[in-house]
């Protein structure tokens, strides 16, 4: 089997893994080594479905010993099997890297025999890449649940980012669909990586040349839609993972029926919940950059997101007591909660309002999405001129905004001023 065939099989087997980020670590040129890493990551291309490709994302091998119901690589599925040798994969990575196709390697694998043996093969590949090929770029490695702690440690010293997939939102679903994996080994790995990172930070503060353990942190992903958990459950879990395990990212992947099974949604009537995945990512952003709590966004009464409106608008509509917000004087935290204002436009408002009074036209130039924000803001104690919408009618306005609304408003104010 030649490299082309192997690449086709093993990239195809890896493509359902969501994460392909290369962020979190800054590493300049080092003498005698090849490559650098950028803190904010770098996207090298985008697939036809709009996902960023920044790493060479492949499996080391796809002949899996496990039989997870939803997985394309499960033992009982009839697909062509292949495995890279460490040398082949290293050479491919280096040649792709110098042509600026990729930012580094994303190495994952099916369970080849046992978790420990798989991890040993993966570590051998990474060691070859770092030591023989002197690769200084980004490496994301997936830890196999149930592997020996010593192997996790060895892998973390070679990789920049590590990840352990939590796979499904609840332990019940996990036991149902992945009989070979348990919740405990997955969370055990996560805790071990967290402690390794913590220890490494401490050592680095004491001694500059201490070995770096997964300097770009760890991430995880879960499948949404294959099992009946609510959005509230998923969001609480996400928040817990960020707080308890210090994760950099939690990724969601809408379940796609690539294989069929008795405990899975019926493929004929099933549609992948892409919108739900989108809403979860929006909420994930609100948790990480907007200081929201999971319980603020959803509650037991309405445990799922509104398909028509994004979570931030929903929160604003449910909390009329906080609005309207005065753009010239409001606290930064409160500005962040206004729909249409993000961290960047919030910072720009803070800069601009030091120089003088603010106007609505100026806010638009600063990058505020006035189509949304106009209903929730005051400038110098005044509402946008000509805007007459009652709070009760706001929801329908936001769901189906009238065309050209804001342009019309700016004409009004020109006439007035």
């Amino acid at each position: 089997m030649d490299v082309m065939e192997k690449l086709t099989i093993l990239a195809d087997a890896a493509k359902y893994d969501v994460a392909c980020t290369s962020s979190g670590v800054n590493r300049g040129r080092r003498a005698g080594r090849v490559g650098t890493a950028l803190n904010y990551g770098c996207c090298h291309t985008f697939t036809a479905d709009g996902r960023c490709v920044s790493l060479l994302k492949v499996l080391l091998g796809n002949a899996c010993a496990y039989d997870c119901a939803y997985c394309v690589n499960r033992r009982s599925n009839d697909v062509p099997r292949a495995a890279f040798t460490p040398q082949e994969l290293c050479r491919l990575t280096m040649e792709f890297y110098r042509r600026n196709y990729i930012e580094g390697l994303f190495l994952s694998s099916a369970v080849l025999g046992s978790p420990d043996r798989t991890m040993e093969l993966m570590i051998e590949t990474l060691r070859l890449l770092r030591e023989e090929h002197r690769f200084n770029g980004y490496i994301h490695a997936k830890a196999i649940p149930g592997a020996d702690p010593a192997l996790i440690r060895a892998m973390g010293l070679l990789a920049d980012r590590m990840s352990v997939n939590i796979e499904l939102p609840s332990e019940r679903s996990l036991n149902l669909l992945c009989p070979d994996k348990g919740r405990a080994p997955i969370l055990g790995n996560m805790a071990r990586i967290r402690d390794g990172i913590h220890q490494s930070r401490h050592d680095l503060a004491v001694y500059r040349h201490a070995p770096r353990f997964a300097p770009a942190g760890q991430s995880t992903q879960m499948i949404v839609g294959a099992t009946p958990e609510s959005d509230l459950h998923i969001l609480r879990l996400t928040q817990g993972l960020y707080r308890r395990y210090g994760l950099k990212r939690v990724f969601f992947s809408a379940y796609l029926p690539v294989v069929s099974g008795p405990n899975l949604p019926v493929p004929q009537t099933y549609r992948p919940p892409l919108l739900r995945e989108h809403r979860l990512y929006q909420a994930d952003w609100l948790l990480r950059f907007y200081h929201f709590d999971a319980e603020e966004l959803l509650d037991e009464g309405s445990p799922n997101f509104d398909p028509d409106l994004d979570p931030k608008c929903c929160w604003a509509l449910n909390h009329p007591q906080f609005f309207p917000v005065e753009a010239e004087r409001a606290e930064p935290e409160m500005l962040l909660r206004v729909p249409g204002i993000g961290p960047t436009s919030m910072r720009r408002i803070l800069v601009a309002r030091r120089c003088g009074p603010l106007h609505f036209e100026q806010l638009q130039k600063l990058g505020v999405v006035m189509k949304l924000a106009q209903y929730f803001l005051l400038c110098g104690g005044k509402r946008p001129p000509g805007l007459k919408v009652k709070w009760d009618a706001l929801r329908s306005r936001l769901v189906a905004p009238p065309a050209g609304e804001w342009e019309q408003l700016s004409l009004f104010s020109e006439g007035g001023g």
Partner: protein
Amino acid sequence: MDGYCYRYDGTFPGFLCCVRDIYQYRESPGLFLLHQDERPSLFDERWVETDLALARRVYRRLGQRLGRRGIEFITLGFLTCLDHRERRLLDVIDLGLNTGPGVERRLDSDQVIQVAKAVRHLQREVDHLRGFVRFSDRGGVLVGTITPKNQVLPLLRRHFCERLAEERFLLYDRTHRQLLIHAPGQEHGGRGRWVIVEAEDFTVPPPDAQERAYQNLWRRFYDTLAIPQRENPRCRQSHMPKRFWGDMTEFQPPEAPGAGGHGPGWKGLALQTLALLILFLLR
């Protein structure tokens, strides 16, 4: 008609010399044109020769008056593709000289907002191109071409010189006809040498068998990654505008071994460039 038409060589030092003249003679320039631009203007003409020593003095003085960030803002503004950027930058400089450092944060001024927007566009294009540049190996030299809107080479230079420190590479900007040449440092692990030169035309020799094999592997990898049930061409296009696709390997059909003709691959390069190139490649 008040104001003058300033003719300069289109470089940043040239612009700084214009700035000095404008303040020296207290003139208001109506228009900036390049030396080689043959269009006549309705304004009186001022021909400005570039004096590097003078430009350096102006740069240092402006740095003192506008602050480090202010002069950086002006420099970046000059690399953008903003219409009448020289006039707008002059307005920003004027504002800065009146109000002192921090002019880049005067978001109440329309001109500052315009320039800041153009600078963001420039920086976004640089971020895009860090990822979208594609090199191909032509006999041990990596060659890439780009077609950007802004002058991005000075800002991309550092990234690629660090990343490919041990490679010889050429990166050609087809829009501004500039060529970045890099060669690794002499002693092991030393810093590489680089230069950006004007180059009117740039053609590359056809790829050899190994290069074609890696291009095909990359195309296959790219095509394999897409998930058909999730197809979303608009999302892809908003992340990666189509104007970049023309220079990216994964959107090109496989190159035939003989395409482009054999023979001197670097034909068309200006003589001076060619000499420099040979100097770099054969060291």
